[in-house]
Every structure is written in C-alpha cells, then in structure tokens.
C-alpha cells in the first residue's frame, strides 16, 4: 500500500469526494486528499523515510510554497510520512475543527524572520600581571554597558516589530556565527513593506550589528494547534 509524504494542510473551496492530482514539480506528483472542507496536500511514496539532504529540503520548501501561492496553509514538518490515505483521513477528521480554525487565523498572513548578528571581536588581550585587576574592573564596566546596549536593541526591536505584527517571538542566543537574536513574526501580507521600513530604522540606530530579514515564509512558527482533538467517548 502506498504511503503519503505530507507537505501541507489547506482549505478547500468546496467539499471534494476524491483524491485529486493538483500539480507536478518535476517527478513529484502532488495530490490533495480531502476530508470535508480541508485537505492534506501530499505525494505517494514507496519509502518509509526521507533523507535529510539539501536537495530534499529545497524541494520540500518549493512544493510547500507552491501550495501556499494558491491558498492559506498549515505547513507540515519535513519528513512526515503517513501509512496510507486512510491514515490521512483519520488525522484530518480527528483534528478537523482545529485545522479549520488555525487556517482561518492564518489567512492572508505571512511569517518574516529577523536575525541579528554581532561581529567577531579580535582578541586584543595583552594580560600582564601589573594591570590585570585594572583590566578586570574596566571589562566589567564595559560588559555592563554592552549588556544594556544589547538589551535596548532586543527590546526596541521586538516592541517595534510587534506593533505591526499579529504575533511575534524571539530567542536570544549566541553561537559560533554570532547570532544573538532570532525572531519570527506573523504579519498581515499588507504590512510587509512597513515591516521592512522598521527594520531599516533599527538598523540605522544600531550600526554595529548585522540585521537580516528573511521571508515571506509560510507560517511555520505559528501553526501549532493549541487545543486537543475532539475524541468520542470510548474512542482512542
């Protein structure tokens, strides 16, 4: 029996009874498996797992974005394979109202990614015994100033972006690539230009940091279902 690789869940304009082929991307034949007024967009596959390679990642995203061009979607996590069409229908049935509500919530909205990086600092330490205490004290003051400046950057960035967003979140981190702020914002499609302008203004105010804006993305960060599925009494 053929398995189904899942790309996205979407609304249907009208109820469909049967599985349909919707479009093709090279050898990938994308089908819609309907349940009432929603459908899972997927592809028949023989394998039980997908290799995480760059080509597969890009192909997945390309197909998700193609579906997203036509309608609001809930993008499915890469590598999700369902046993068969019946399994798909079971999921659509079980989570039907949650999927419908979430699709309605995300209609005409898009996700943008905001990242802030800091440059590598050159190691200028020339620690000697006679000035080490003086340096420590100075460094503490400098660090405190830097922390305040960075906190100001985070709060100003997040608060300003939230004003033109529906939802937003960020994590603060620092890795070998010097990423210090990793944010995702859900905005009305009409606000993309305003969002870019806000980023430009913040960038001008904090020239020592590198800002990046990516997207528009399908709403990967905002499609989590908040409520549990409806289950019949005695059901599984």
């Amino acid at each position, binding site marked *: 029996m053929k398995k189904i690789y899942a790309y996205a869940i979407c609304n249907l304009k009208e109820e469909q009874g049967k599985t349909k082929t919707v479009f093709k991307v090279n050898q990938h034949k994308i089908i819609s498996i309907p349940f009432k007024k929603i459908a899972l967009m997927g592809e028949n596959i023989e394998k*039980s797992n997908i290799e995480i390679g760059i*080509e597969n990642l890009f192909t997945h995203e390309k197909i998700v974005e193609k579906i997203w061009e036509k309608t609001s979607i809930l*993008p*499915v*996590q890469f590598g*999700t*394979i369902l046993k068969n069409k019946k399994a798909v229908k079971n999921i659509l049935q079980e989570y039907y109202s949650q999927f419908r509500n979430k699709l309605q919530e995300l209609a005409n909205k898009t996700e943008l990614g905001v990242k802030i990086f800091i440059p590598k600092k050159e190691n200028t330490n020339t620690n000697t015994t006679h000035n080490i205490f003086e340096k420590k004290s100075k460094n503490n003051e400098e660090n405190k100033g830097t922390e305040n400046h960075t906190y100001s950057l985070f709060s100003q960035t997040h608060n300003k972006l939230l004003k033109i967003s529906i939802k937003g979140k960020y994590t603060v981190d620092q890795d070998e690539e010097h990423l210090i702020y990793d944010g995702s914002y859900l905005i009305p499609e009409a606000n993309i230009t305003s969002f870019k302008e806000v980023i430009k203004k913040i960038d001008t105010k904090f020239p020592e940091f590198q800002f990046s804006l990516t997207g528009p*993305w399908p709403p990967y*960060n905002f499609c989590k*279902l908040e409520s549990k599925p409806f289950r019949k009494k005695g059901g599984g």
Partner: protein
Amino acid sequence: MTFENEKLSNEKITLLDLVDRILDKGVILKGDITISVADVDLIYLGLKVFLASVDKAEELREHQWEKMKQGDY
C-alpha cells in the same frame, strides 16, 4: 552593517532560516499512524554544522538557491 569581512551572506542566512523552519517547525502529525524520519535531531545537528561551512554555503548559493528561485526544479 559594519563587519564586511565577517558578514554572513544573505543566502546562508536564508538557508539557516529554511532549515530552522522546515525541520523544527510546522505542523507535527502525531499518532501511531505517523512514521517520522528517524533521529531527526541528530541529523539536524549535523546539518547545522554543515551549514556553518562558508564553502558549502557558496556552493549551495550557486547550485541550489538560484535554481530554486528561478523555478528550475
């Protein structure tokens, strides 16, 4: 936008964002009927390390990203 030599390419940042999203986010269809990719976290970690390579980012920029944007595959 100060550090020209240290500046990450837009392609690389976009690729990092893509990986963050499609591997780690999105709807998770749970249940006995779902077969997921095994050891995703482990492979994902490896991929992030892989993405940190500037050479690879350049290679990806040339061979994958442009193709995708132009709709060649």
